[in-house]
């Protein structure tokens, strides 16, 4: 592992390509960019490469609960580590100035500035919020959180575990938990019928490999004896000091840990903060940056690749990362257009293949309106500032036309998470109240610092600027 502390002042300060995120897209882009002869900086908040899907793969690779899922990631990580790439783990990008290519980074209490001709945002996905009544109770977590705990520390929830919601991750996590010695109960919220959705959405033949893998996960969990409750509605977490049960229409499941999941959405915090153009994706029900086939954004120096661009999983992210790196090679004059297009063919084909099943998955696991815009007045939407659905509807009714106005009315989006978690729900509730499409109410415009930094970090940045040659 690359744990040798590098003094910020000793590191190079100018790069051809800066990549934000060391997941599949970021790692693949870094490898391809090096092959094109670019100098590459990779900045990642986590301690090791892998992103979320291959999180801590070098530690988790030998864990029987995870080994088979981590194997492809280990190969990618090994190739990434073998190359001459300036890789900074445990480092936070807190400001990006696209016009000058200046990145402000914080690492272990120090801050520094570097510049890059081009920046690739490979910031991945985050789980869609699941704002049901009681979701702030201790013991209620996102499903991804439990998976991260398993990957990074090999730990599992003790006592009764209930998984509630829907999506491919639920079945994967269920299998991983079972392999790790935990038998959860799955309360599925899926409302779309499988067969009809498949016939309407298509892609089940070209995406057969992925489909077979998914069906395999479902069968294995059922064969292991996991109890599955389907078609659950009106979920609520109950308990006094911590969660004690999941209640839903027609049933109740006692639990010590409740893991919620309703799919993932692109992490657009930085792409929105720097003002890239975004569009509403009506199929995936999320905002995403407007990009060309190579991931180039509305800003001449910025590209986006991977699940931060469109939700499609790690194989598509690898291909998209490669395409963005090739495009960087062309734009910085290291390869010709013909060379870029020739080298892009394999990645473009891989991308197409990886996308085959996506329309089916998107349709099958479309979240219901009660998840997008919680109907109950008292349900908390903004966890930081504890803003409820009821107060948001009030704000929307008296003139808050979008999330940026609601933020001024109620502080939702003004807490430490800066609206990362509540942003999509706030927009959906306002849209529903105003009876207009979500596109019309818009999205939050985050501002730097993208994550809180200390005064000490800010002060160290100033010193470094002064001491520049």
């Amino acid at each position: 592992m690359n744990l040798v502390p590098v003094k910020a002042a000793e590191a190079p300060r100018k790069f051809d390509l800066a990549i934000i995120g060391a997941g599949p897209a970021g790692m693949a882009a870094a490898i391809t960019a090096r092959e094109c002869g670019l100098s590459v900086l990779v900045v990642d908040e986590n301690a090791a490469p892998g992103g979320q899907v291959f999180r801590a793969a070098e530690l988790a690779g030998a864990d029987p609960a995870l080994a088979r899922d981590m194997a492809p990631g280990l190969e990618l990580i090994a190739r990434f580590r073998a190359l001459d790439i300036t890789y900074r783990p445990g480092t936070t990008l807190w400001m990006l100035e696209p016009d000058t290519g200046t990145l402000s980074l914080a690492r272990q209490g120090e801050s520094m500035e570097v510049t890059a001709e081009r920046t690739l945002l490979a910031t991945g996905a985050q789980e869609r919020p699941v704002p049901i009544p009681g979701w702030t109770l201790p013991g209620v977590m996102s499903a991804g959180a439990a998976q991260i705990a398993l990957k990074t520390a090999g730990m599992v929830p003790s006592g009764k575990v209930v998984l509630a919601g829907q999506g491919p991750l639920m079945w994967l996590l269920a299998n991983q938990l079972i392999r790790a010695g935990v038998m959860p109960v799955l309360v599925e919220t899926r409302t779309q019928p499988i067969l009809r959705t498949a016939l309407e959405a298509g892609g089940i033949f070209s995406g057969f490999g992925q489909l077979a893998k998914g069906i395999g996960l479902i069968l294995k969990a059922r064969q292991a004896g996991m109890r599955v409750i389907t078609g659950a509605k009106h979920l609520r977490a109950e308990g006094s000091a911590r969660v004690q049960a999941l209640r839903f229409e027609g049933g109740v499941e006692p639990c010590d840990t409740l893991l919620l999941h309703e799919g993932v959405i692109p992490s657009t915090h930085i792409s929105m903060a720097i003002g890239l153009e975004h569009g509403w994706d009506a199929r995936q029900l999320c905002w995403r940056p407007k990009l060309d086939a190579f991931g180039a954004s509305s800003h001449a120096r910025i590209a986006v690749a991977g699940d931060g661009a469109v939700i499609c999983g790690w194989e598509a992210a690898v291909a998209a990362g490669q395409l963005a790196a090739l495009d960087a090679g062309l734009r910085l004059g290291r390869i010709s257009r013909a060379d870029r297009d020739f080298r892009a063919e394999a990645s473009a084909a891989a991308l197409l293949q990886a996308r085959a099943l996506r329309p089916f998955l998107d349709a099958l696991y479309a979240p219901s309106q009660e998840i997008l815009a919680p109907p109950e007045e008292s349900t908390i939407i903004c966890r930081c500032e504890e803003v409820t659905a009821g107060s948001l509807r009030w704000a929307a009714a008296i003139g808050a036309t979008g999330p940026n106005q609601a933020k001024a009315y109620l502080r939702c989006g003004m807490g430490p998470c800066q609206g990362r978690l509540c942003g999509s729900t706030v927009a959906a509730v306002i849209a529903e109240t105003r009876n207009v499409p979500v596109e019309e109410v818009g999205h939050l415009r985050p501002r730097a610092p993208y994550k809180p930094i200390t005064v000490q970090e800010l002060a160290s940045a100033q010193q470094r600027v002064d001491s520049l040659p």
Partner: protein
Amino acid sequence: MFRTRPDHRPETVQVFVEGRALMVPEGSSAAAAILISGLSSIRETPVSGSPRLPWCMMGVCFDCLAEIDGVANRQACMVPVVAGMRIARQHGAREVQR
């Protein structure tokens, strides 16, 4: 509450959660250490004082804000444990150090 699987993750690091010594697997975050410790909450919110434990474990939600080695408002899920780390609950909004 979470439990570890020492058969598969034998390497451990000693940390202190609310002053109590605890062995946690190498690679854990400070937030993971709190979950292993069985503490009923990692913080109380500044608005209503309601107890919270981590929600996302990946740096999105900021529900795991804690005091780590004397520095408040750290995202505990983004801080890997090191030997001797002191992790403490955060009550309400953090205070400026006096």
